[in-house]
């Protein structure tokens, strides 16, 4: 076999292999670079200070806790909005909508993914923030919740499209069998189709969350960027500051090689590890069951 292969075939195969491995190499290089620039932090700043509750870098307060908390709470808020909405939309598109509507809805949802986040952020500042302030009666509309709503809008297309693919991949015999046993259409969707596509729907959720946690621009524009630590429900309608917004706002300013510079890379490192974890969780779910998730990258 090996001898009969043409050189061109060999070259193409090598090229494809190289492109595959290059992704791994890039991620590794990025990680190493983050480590190189971020690790000096641990020599320059006391560990206790990094776990402090105050972020005010120009005065040497490098507490990462409010930033991590800000990112978590804004992402959780987005997940709470986007997951039920996204799964419901996917169910509607895959199971309920007639074919013509389905062909219309899928691309429409994906248009949402194409909107630049700065446009959403601008809409957030102009329209959503005042609405949040007046309807909730909170002191300012630049809150975590405003950011969560925008992030949910951005995570929705991923969730809908991946979950819809997973639902679509459930064999028709499952539905037919369920209906034949006397289940109603709703019972079939809720008790048969959705559980069968569970791993794909979970993957969709994780990918959506992964998209949300790394988003920067819209979050920076509407969350108010106040690095404060508040308990869960109240934190939602108060301003907060995410890790991504912190890096974006401060990176242009710091002197290369300064402590502040190194700490920002440590923030990047934490962010990298979190999104890495989310992605690992997503793909482990994907591999656990081959049902439905195969078209994850569609």
């Amino acid at each position, binding site marked *: 076999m090996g001898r009969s292969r043409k050189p061109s075939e060999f070259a193409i195969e090598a090229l494809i292999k190289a492109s595959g491995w290059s992704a791994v190499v890039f991620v590794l290089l990025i990680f190493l670079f983050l480590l190189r620039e971020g690790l000096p932090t641990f020599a320059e700043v006391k560990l206790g200070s990094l776990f402090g509750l105050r972020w005010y870098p*120009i005065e040497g307060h490098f507490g990462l806790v409010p930033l991590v908390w800000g990112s978590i709470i804004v992402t959780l808020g987005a997940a709470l909005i986007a997951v039920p909405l996204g799964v419901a939309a996917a169910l509607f598109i895959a199971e309920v909508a007639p074919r013509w509507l389905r062909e219309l809805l899928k691309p429409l949802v994906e248009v949402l993914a194409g909107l630049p986040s700065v446009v959403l952020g601008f809409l957030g500042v102009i329209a959503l923030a005042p609405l949040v302030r007046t309807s909730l009666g909170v002191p300012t509309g630049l809150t975590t919740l405003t950011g969560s709503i925008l992030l949910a809008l951005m995570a929705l297309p991923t969730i809908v499209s991946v979950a819809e693919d997973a639902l679509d991949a459930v064999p028709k015999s499952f539905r037919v069998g369920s209906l034949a046993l006397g289940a109603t259409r709703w019972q079939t969707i809720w008790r048969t189709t959705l559980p069968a596509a569970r791993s794909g729907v979970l993957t969709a959720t994780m990918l959506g969350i992964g998209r949300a946690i790394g988003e920067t621009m819209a979050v920076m524009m509407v969350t108010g960027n106040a690095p404060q630590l508040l308990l869960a429900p109240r934190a939602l309608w108060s301003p907060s500051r995410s890790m991504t917004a912190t890096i974006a706002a401060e990176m*242009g*300013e710091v002197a290369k090689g300064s402590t502040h510079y190194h700490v920002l890379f440590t923030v990047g490192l934490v962010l990298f590890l979190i999104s890495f974890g989310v992605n690992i969780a997503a793909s482990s779910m994907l591999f656990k069951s081959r049902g439905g998730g195969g078209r994850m990258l569609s």
Partner: protein
Amino acid sequence: MLVRFPICAGRALLATLAAATIAACGGAPGGAASGRSSAITDIGSDTIVNLALAWAEAYAKVQPAVRISVTGGGSGTGINSLINGSADIANASRRMTAGEVAAAKEHGISPREVVVARDAIAVIVHKSNPVSRLTIEQLAAIFSGRIDNWSEVGGEDRPIVRLSREVNSGTHVYFLEAVLRGGRKGDKTLFSADTLLLPSSEGVIAETTDNPNAIGYDGLGYVTPDVKVIAVSGDGGKTFVLPSAASVTDRTYPIARDLYMYVREGAPPQVRGYIDWILSPEAQRLVQSLGFVPIH
């Protein structure tokens, strides 16, 4: 919203096409200079950026051979660019710190400081806010979080929403030192942790315009008629002064500061020529028209 695009002199209207513009400027056809480039890179403070743009545009008529590209980004950005050699002029709304001067020396650059204009920092609130005057001490108490409700300074029973620029902004640092710490060395007062740090001057204006609870500060040049300017007292409440060119020049308005351009010693002649022109009466007239205060 962000004034962070690289903008080429004379083409400010095309700011949104920044990337294309800068490329077009780089190889501008009809540029008088052939061979050796006579471009000046001017980076720094967002407070100064509009003024720097106006200067660059006017200078294009005085010295058409010299091209000046102006970029915002914040005082720290400009100073860092000067230190690492990517800018000829750093605009700064604060002085360089000792650490920054040392870093520049390490790179073989000794920075020269030029005061190019003065600026009043206006304290602004929503138009409907009945409060119209505050002392420096009250402002310090508000922004450091000791006062949380407008009723404590004679307003309605409303929570106070504090707005500030990002910590990298020269305006933020100046406000911290001059107001929150009252100019006292060694004072460790910080902004309250729930202060909203907005990424641009326009962001501060937009939220103040919209939110009746808000209080913010901004360079006088940025203030629009949609917000209310507070009269400030620097002598414990005896006299309250509104920010204006006159009250900055006669030093009665307490929150005013110098605006700087930093160049390196031994800068090319066209840079020195440009700085000399900026200090001329002709260039200083532009300062006034943009809401800043001329140096003489």
